[in-house]
């Protein structure tokens, strides 16, 4: 019991006599491990086997005639040893049972096998006495009785060996006497046995009572609450000491046999139960530093509890009331938090305030300081720490520049006098920059608690350098102003209006080119300097300013004595009396002649530009970002027929052709972002209603966000061009005529030949149906050939520019085109290869125009390959989802890079005079662009390759544009 309290160590149950020995029920109880238990059980079993099984076996051996004496002795000794072991293990009943059986069996064996000779009595006597002796012994100990009991049979045996049986038979009386003796021996042994047990019981009983008393007194006198619960019985309380009774206000007789749930609020009981179960399951003691419990009288307590498992069944709990401790802890913690908070506040204030704070000890050394102090003094923490007021490095001075004596430093004075010092101004040298800094210091002495002597001084100071310098500045300002006005040649004047006294500074005389002697200080003197007519204007200005009680801001011309004219600008503050009459004017004058000159130059330049604007034959306009006319020139007004007033209300979008509006809007957007001049062609509505085609150059002004436009009416030009295109086509037709003549004359020759043959045959009566049929078929075929050619020609020759866009078969277009030139190609040994054309491939186009372009490209290719060894032209198709590319590739020499730029230009040709107009490609390009496509020379292609890229479907806007 020595260490029950407060520790997890618990006495071993087999260690001496204690309360727990009550629960020891068998010899196995003390076995600590499974191995030991196993060994003990095995031993018990062996004893049983030897006593009940082995011995009868020995009897059989005896009947088989083995040496009797030796075997009996051996078995007897073995059995005795085993019984002894069983006894040692506490299997007293078993040991005794074995002994009884063995001795009786031995008696029987000797009786029946040896015919019970007299000398055998030596052996019988110990055998009969032994059980009684063994019973006599203490069941829990091997004592003297046991020793004698075991040694007696051995002694009997020895006697038998020394005096072997002499053959004298026992009489029936002796046998009966022996049996009686045997029974008596057993009865006596049982009596001894009972007595021995009673003795043992009494001894145990006493021990228990003593232990109980001891334990109870210990438990009841514990200053801690102690309780025990039985986990096998719903954690009912089995123990509840006195302290627990008082602490929880619950008497033990009430609580024993009950659970936590019978007394405590459910949440507390649940908590206890959880902990209990955890302790039992883990089979390990647990410390609960703090738990809440509501005692019997409703008082809330805080406990510190140790819970210990015992034998995996019982739970011992020892609780200490920590309510008071906890309460005092709470108060302390709250106090600590308050102190910390205050400290933090002060620290924040200390570190963030603009004023510098230093704490000086009695020797004047700085022992504490805040960041502001470091900043103001320009010192690092290391530099300021320990520095004294007497340190010469401060280089402290008074406001008047005299040296600040160390003992006069406010901190030192506060330390010395014990009185606070306020607003001492001191100049110190900032250590890091060497600049002079001015600080205003308040110093306060600090007394030790309960002491009269000053222990420390607290100096609080702020930087007043700037305030001081501002004060100094204002003194210098007027001086500076004077310099500035002189430097800028600004004259200052002061005119007392009522007294008519005009005061000028020196600069004024300079401005007016006058000598002081010529100026008498009256307005009239000034007036004399004005250029003719200026005084009247100035008077009018004055009248206006005074009438609205405003300030003066005006310009006038001055005729200088040297004859030159200057422009003077005047700005003045006007002061009025209570009646609103002007009292005084204070102002400045300066020469603005140069500015006027520049303005004149600008005006002149502007006039020139304006003239150009007016005389330009091209249309010029400035429009704002929304397209409204800000300015327009007569050419524009004439071309479009609007007056300037009408144009001012117009936006370009109002007069633009609806079909051009979208693209124009986009162009405008583009122009506004671009820095370059952009060209665009739009149709604008003439006032009369007709549309004019205008080609514009447009540029954007980033300053004003305006757009500058220069335009030319190209309506007639375009008409001319269109005519030219038709002419070119006709010329191209001429070029083709040779080919076409050949194309048509050949079939015509066949037709004519056939006709003559038929006629001739008819003449000679040689006509038969077969011949006629043969000729007729050929005539029909030939006529169809001619028809195809004519159709191709029609397709080509007509002006397709007004045709509607229709979905057309690409194969058909290409066939129509080839009809016109295939023969020509083959006759000149030009191999014409045609890509596979999907039969259903269609594009939205004007078919005759596309045929025209294709024909043009094929003709160009034809010309290019003529005269070359390798002569071929290929038409290739590149079919994508939304576009179709038709490539015309030939084996020609290719286009020289320098020419590739020009080939699309109108009237550019490489052909000899008369062979080409130079319009073909430019027209072709125009056509393809009208189809929202692109005609280009593929410069990366190894041969000459022209690509026609066409959208398969046209957008509605494209369809409309002619």
């Amino acid at each position, binding site marked *: 019991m020595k260490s029950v309290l407060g520790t997890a160590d618990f006495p071993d149950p087999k260690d001496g006599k204690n309360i727990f020995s009550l629960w020891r029920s068998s010899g196995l109880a003390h076995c600590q491990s499974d191995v030991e238990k196993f060994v003990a059980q095995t031993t018990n079993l062996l004893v049983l086997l030897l006593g009940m099984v082995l011995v009868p076996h020995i009897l059989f051996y005896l009947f088989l005639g083995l040496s009797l004496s030796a075997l009996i002795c051996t078995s007897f000794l073995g059995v005795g040893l085993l019984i002894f072991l069983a006894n040692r293990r506490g299997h007293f009943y078993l040991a005794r049972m074995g002994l009884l059986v063995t001795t009786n069996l031995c008696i029987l064996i000797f009786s029946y096998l040896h015919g019970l000779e007299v000398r055998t009595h030596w052996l019988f006597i110990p055998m009969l006495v032994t059980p009684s002796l063994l019973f006599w012994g203490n069941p829990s100990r091997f004592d003297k009785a046991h020793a004698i009991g075991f040694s007696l049979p051995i002694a009997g045996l020895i006697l038998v060996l020394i005096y072997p049986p002499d053959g004298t038979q026992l009489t029936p009386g002796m046998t009966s006497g022996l049996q009686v003796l045997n029974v008596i021996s057993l009865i006596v042994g049982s009596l001894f046995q009972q007595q021995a047990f009673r003795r043992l019981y009494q001894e145990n009983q006493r021990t228990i009572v003593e232990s109980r008393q001891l334990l109870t007194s210990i438990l009841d006198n514990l200053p801690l609450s102690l309780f025990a619960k039985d986990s096998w019985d719903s954690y009912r309380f089995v123990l509840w000491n006195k302290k627990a009774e008082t602490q929880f206000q619950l008497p033990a007789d009430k609580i024993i046999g009950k659970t936590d749930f019978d007394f405590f609020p459910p949440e507390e009981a649940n908590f206890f139960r959880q902990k209990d179960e955890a302790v039992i399951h883990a089979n390990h003691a647990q410390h609960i530093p703090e738990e809440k419990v509501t005692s019997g009288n409703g008082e809330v307590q805080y406990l510190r509890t140790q819970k210990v498992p015992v034998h995996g069944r019982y739970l011992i709990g020892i609780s200490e009331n920590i309510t008071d401790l906890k309460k005092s802890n709470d108060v302390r913690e709250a106090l600590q938090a308050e102190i910390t908070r205050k400290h933090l506040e002060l620290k924040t204030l200390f570190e963030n305030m603009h004023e510098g704070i230093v704490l000086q000890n009695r020797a004047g050394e700085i022992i504490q300081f805040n960041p502001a102090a470091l900043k103001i003094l320009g010192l690092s923490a290391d530099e300021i720490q320990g520095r004294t007021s007497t340190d010469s490095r401060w280089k402290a001075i008074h406001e008047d520049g005299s040296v600040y004596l160390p003992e006069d430093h406010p901190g030192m004075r506060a330390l010395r006098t014990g009185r606070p010092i306020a607003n001492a101004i001191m100049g110190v040298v900032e250590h890091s920059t060497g600049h002079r800094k001015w600080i205003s210091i308040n110093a306060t002495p600090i007394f030790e608690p309960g002491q009269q002597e000053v222990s420390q001084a607290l100096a609080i100071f702020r930087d007043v350098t700037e305030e001081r310098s501002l004060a100094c500045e204002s003194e210098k300002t007027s001086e500076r102003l004077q310099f500035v006005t002189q430097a800028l040649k600004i004259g200052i004047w002061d005119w007392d209006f009522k007294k008519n006294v005009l005061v000028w500074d020196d600069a004024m005389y300079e401005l007016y080119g006058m000598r002081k002697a010529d100026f008498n200080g009256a307005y009239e003197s000034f007036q004399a300097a004005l250029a003719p007519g200026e005084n009247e204007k100035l008077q009018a200005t004055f009248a206006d300013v005074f009438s609205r009680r405003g300030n003066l801001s005006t310009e006038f011309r001055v005729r200088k004595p040297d004859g030159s004219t200057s422009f003077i600008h005047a700005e003045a503050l006007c002061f009025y009396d209570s009646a609103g009459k002007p009292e005084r004017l204070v102002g400045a004058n300066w020469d603005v002649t140069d500015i006027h000159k520049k303005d004149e130059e600008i005006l002149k330049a502007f006039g020139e530009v304006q003239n150009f604007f007016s005389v330009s034959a091209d249309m010029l306009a400035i429009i704002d970002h929304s397209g409204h006319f800000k300015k327009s020139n007569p050419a524009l007004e004439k071309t479009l027929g609007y007056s300037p007033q009408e144009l001012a209300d117009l936006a370009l979008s109002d007069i633009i052709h609806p079909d051009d509006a979208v693209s124009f809007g986009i162009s405008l957007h583009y122009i506004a972002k671009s820095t370059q001049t952009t060209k665009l062609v739009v149709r604008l509505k003439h006032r009369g209603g007709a549309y004019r085609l205008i080609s514009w150059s447009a540029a954007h002004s980033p300053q004003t966000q305006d757009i500058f436009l220069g335009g030319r009416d190209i309506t007639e030009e375009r008409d001319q061009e269109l005519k030219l295109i038709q002419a070119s086509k006709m010329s191209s037709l001429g070029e083709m005529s040779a080919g076409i003549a*050949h194309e048509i004359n050949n079939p015509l*020759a066949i037709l*004519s*030949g056939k006709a*003559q043959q038929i006629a001739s045959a008819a003449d000679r009566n040689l006509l038969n149906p077969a011949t006629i049929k043969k000729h007729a078929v050929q005539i029909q*075929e030939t006529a169809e050939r001619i028809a195809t050619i004519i159709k191709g020609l029609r397709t080509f020759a007509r002006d397709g520019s007004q045709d509607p866009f229709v979905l057309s078969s690409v194969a058909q277009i290409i066939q129509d085109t080839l009809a016109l030139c295939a023969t020509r190609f083959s006759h000149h040994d030009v191999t014409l290869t045609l890509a596979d054309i999907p039969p259903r491939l269609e594009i939205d186009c004007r078919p005759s125009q596309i045929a025209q372009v294709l024909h043009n490209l094929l003709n160009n290719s034809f010309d290019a390959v003529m005269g070359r060894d390798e002569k071929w032209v290929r038409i290739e198709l590149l079919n994508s989802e939304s576009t179709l590319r038709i490539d015309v590739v030939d084996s020609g020499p290719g286009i020289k890079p320098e020419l590739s730029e020009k080939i699309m230009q109108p009237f550019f040709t490489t052909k000899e005079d008369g062979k080409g107009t130079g319009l073909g490609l430019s027209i072709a390009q125009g056509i393809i662009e009208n189809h929202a496509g692109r005609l280009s020379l593929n410069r990366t292609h190894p041969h000459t390759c022209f690509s026609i890229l066409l959208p398969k479907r046209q957008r509605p806007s494209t369809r409309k544009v002619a």
Partner: protein
Amino acid sequence: MKNFQGKHILVADDEEGIRDIFKDEFEQLGAQVSEATNGIEALQIIHTKHIDLVLSDIRMPGGDGVKLLAEIIKTKKPIPVILMTGFSDWKIEELLKMGARSVFTKPFNLEAVMEKIDRILEEQK
């Protein structure tokens, strides 16, 4: 009545219809007819066979009739060459100067052509 018996005439034209017409005509009159679709073919036939007269188109793929005429003249064989053309950059006088015995433009009068051939063949005799 014309009789082309024993004559071997070469017709060179890329138009099958034209060749057919002349083949019919010449064969009716007892002549043997060879056909060529271009000048080169025609020249090969001239080199391998005895030809009495050549009737050739001018524009043909693979060697035109004018070249053929020049080649025939080069061979120094006395083969008369008659040229036909639907359209040509050549003037008839130039072709005659080059050695063509006669030039016809398409469409032609078949009878006139046959008459001319007959006369030329007669002269050959």
